[in-house]
């Protein structure tokens, strides 16, 4: 692939040389200066200094919420109880695959980040919760853990600093909801992955009721680099409120899908068209998800929006996990909406009624749209169902369906109506409609 003549962002931090053969072994990683920052933090800095450096860097969580990482660690109470650090490697947001590449190619970068973050938070036990599907990556981390233990970067009295840390790799077993931090904690405690009521937030009462920091893989992997560059230097990259670089997973209807490291604030068009090659020849971008399937969709005309946390929020969407899914003009929006709704219906844990029932009804209504048995009024009902879900559940899984579906209905209303008309013309008696599911209550809405 040639990149000449294109405007390629010059800042590469996490992905610099990540394809170097053998980087997953501790020898190559240390030859490149690996674990020096963990050593420096543990032997020359106080935990407060590490937190200060993270605060200065302006690093924001790379998992989805974008919360300042230094602040998150500073919320951990300074009391003498067992504290925990959990690395969220569940990465189940559709469209996201950045952590997979990071863990597979440079597992020690993550482990070093965990040592630094645990030291800053005063945590003595740490866990990596990796999704069960990533068995290859989990095997690589398992091997890296043994190497790190043998080299004395995990265990008791690390680098002679008196700081001790245990690190356990925990494999999940396939549940989207376990990427939600409190669902992840329940799953890690050996239960069903049901989200918890917040507050209390995990910083006060998390894993085993102890203060817990939960960070995404990319966030943790960035920490050694922040210490190496200095927080101030890191803050100069990107925009004022979105510092640094971000791994972006581009997928869907693009010619070169893959992970790209970009400087936050570059125009989205550059990522989609220059780096990922844009949609197939002769096609145009119809709409795109800027931050995983949970983010409200943006249109072709929004491609010039700078790719950073605040610009995307201003545009009514979000950066989320940094997963761009591009949909070109050959695809019907109803198909995407139905696919999406079915996914969230399947993954809803069932704890909160608005999400459990809302996702189910949305699927039922979209199937009617697809079969031509819906009326335009159903679109209003569907939009109102989405509104009822948002903000009414313990976690944001329901919102994660409601926001993109709501935005699709709002932005492509005419196409939804045309789809109903076309399906009805094809099939005036609704014969090929899916057999309706019996309503829970006789005579329930729309049954």
């Amino acid at each position, binding site marked *: 692939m040639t990149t000449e003549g294109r405007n390629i962002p010059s800042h590469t931090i996490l992905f610099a040389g990540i394809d170097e053969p053998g980087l997953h072994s501790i020898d190559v990683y240390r030859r490149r200066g690996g674990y020096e920052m963990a050593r420096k933090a543990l032997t020359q800095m106080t935990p407060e200094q590490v937190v200060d450096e993270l605060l200065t860097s302006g690093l924001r969580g790379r998992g989805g919420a974008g919360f300042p990482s230094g602040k998150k660690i500073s919320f951990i109470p300074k009391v003498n109880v067992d504290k925990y650090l959990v690395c969220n490697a569940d990465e189940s947001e559709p469209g996201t695959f950045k952590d997979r590449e990071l863990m597979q190619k440079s597992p020690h970068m993550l482990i070093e980040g965990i040592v630094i973050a645990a030291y800053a938070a005063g945590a003595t036990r740490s866990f990596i919760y990796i999704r069960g599907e990533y068995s290859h990556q989990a095997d690589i981390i398992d091997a890296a853990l043994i190497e790190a233990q043998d080299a004395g970067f995990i265990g008791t009295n690390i680098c002679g600093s008196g700081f001790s840390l245990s690190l356990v790799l925990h*494999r999940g077993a396939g549940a989207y909801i376990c990427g939600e931090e409190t669902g992840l904690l329940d799953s890690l405690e050996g239960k*069903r992955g049901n989200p918890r009521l917040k507050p209390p937030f995990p910083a006060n009462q998390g894993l085993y009721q102890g203060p817990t920091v939960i960070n995404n893989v990319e966030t943790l992997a960035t920490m050694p680099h922040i210490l190496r560059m200095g927080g101030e230097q890191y803050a100069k990259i990107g925009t004022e409120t979105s510092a640094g670089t971000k791994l972006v997973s581009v997928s869907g209807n693009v010619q070169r899908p893959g992970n790209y490291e970009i400087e936050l604030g570059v125009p989205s068009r550059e990522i989609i068209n220059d780096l990922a090659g844009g949609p197939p020849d002769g096609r145009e971008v119809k709409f795109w998800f800027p931050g995983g399937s949970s983010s409200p969709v943006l249109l072709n005309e929004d491609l010039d929006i700078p790719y950073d946390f605040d610009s995307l929020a201003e545009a009514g969407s979000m950066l989320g996990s940094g997963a761009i899914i591009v949909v070109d003009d050959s695809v019907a929006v109803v198909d995407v909406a139905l696919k999406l709704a079915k996914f969230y219906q399947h993954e809803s844990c069932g704890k909160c009624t608005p999400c459990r029932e809302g996702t189910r009804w949305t699927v039922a209504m979209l199937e009617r749209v697809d079969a031509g048995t819906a009326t335009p009024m159903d679109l209003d009902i569907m939009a109102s169902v989405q509104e009822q879900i948002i903000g009414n559940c313990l976690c944001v899984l329901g919102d994660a369906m409601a926001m993109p579906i709501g935005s699709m209905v709002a932005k492509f209303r005419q196409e939804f109506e045309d789809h109903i008309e076309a399906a009805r013309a094809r099939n005036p008696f609704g014969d090929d409609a899916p057999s309706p599911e019996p309503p829970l209550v006789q005579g329930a809405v729309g049954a």
Partner: protein
Amino acid sequence: MSRRGEAEPSRATGGHPASSERGAGRSAEVTHNGGEAGHGHPHGRRGPQVQRFGHGSRVPGWDEAADLSKDPAVVPDPATTPVPAQLRAEIEAHMAKYPDTRSASIPALAAAQRHHGWCSPEAIEQAACVMRLTPGYLISVASFYDMLETHPVGRHNVYVCTNISCSLCGADELLAALSEEIGDDSETFNLRAFECLGACDIAPMASVDGVYIGPVALDEVPKLVEQVRSGLPPLPNKQLSSRKSTDPNAHVTSSEGGHS
């Protein structure tokens, strides 16, 4: 999904006398209603596709506790619950890693599943015996997670990601082609439509016993199926593990990279 309900009593019950007695009763109770996976409900979770067993339970053999004339199952007695030594050692090693041994429930169930082929009543009972939990607790966990099988399944897991990115690139066609090629060989294959597997860059993709392969062209499907059948590595030149990064700076070897 219709394959999943066709329990094999011999495999489901093993050699344990108590459970084989239950197993016989169970297979007689099985009521098959609706075998068609169609209508785009790949997980068979909705409406008439759900298989019901005795007492309305969705899970074969796990309905005993729902019999109100009986007490709920208690923590299995080690004296009457033989556990293979290897499985016991594996579960105990997992339990030792956590401050609270209950945290090991997912790894323990995964180990029991590897040993028994699926989370059969016997597998659950053995895991519960080692972990000192009730079978009911572990059933509640097993039924929550997609990768823990609560029905007998084929030996090789073939998960096809059918989420947005993959389906934009033809994942539904891939699943249909695989399904046709495999036919009714449910003893060898556990073919499932799966939610996003985190490999949208190689869409359409599949995970064959944990090995990610993609992009899989439709004309490679017969070869792939044959490779899985004969125990060979699936599509070696399409495996994710050997794929280079798409980022143009990934080949820069200095740790400073392209940073100016």
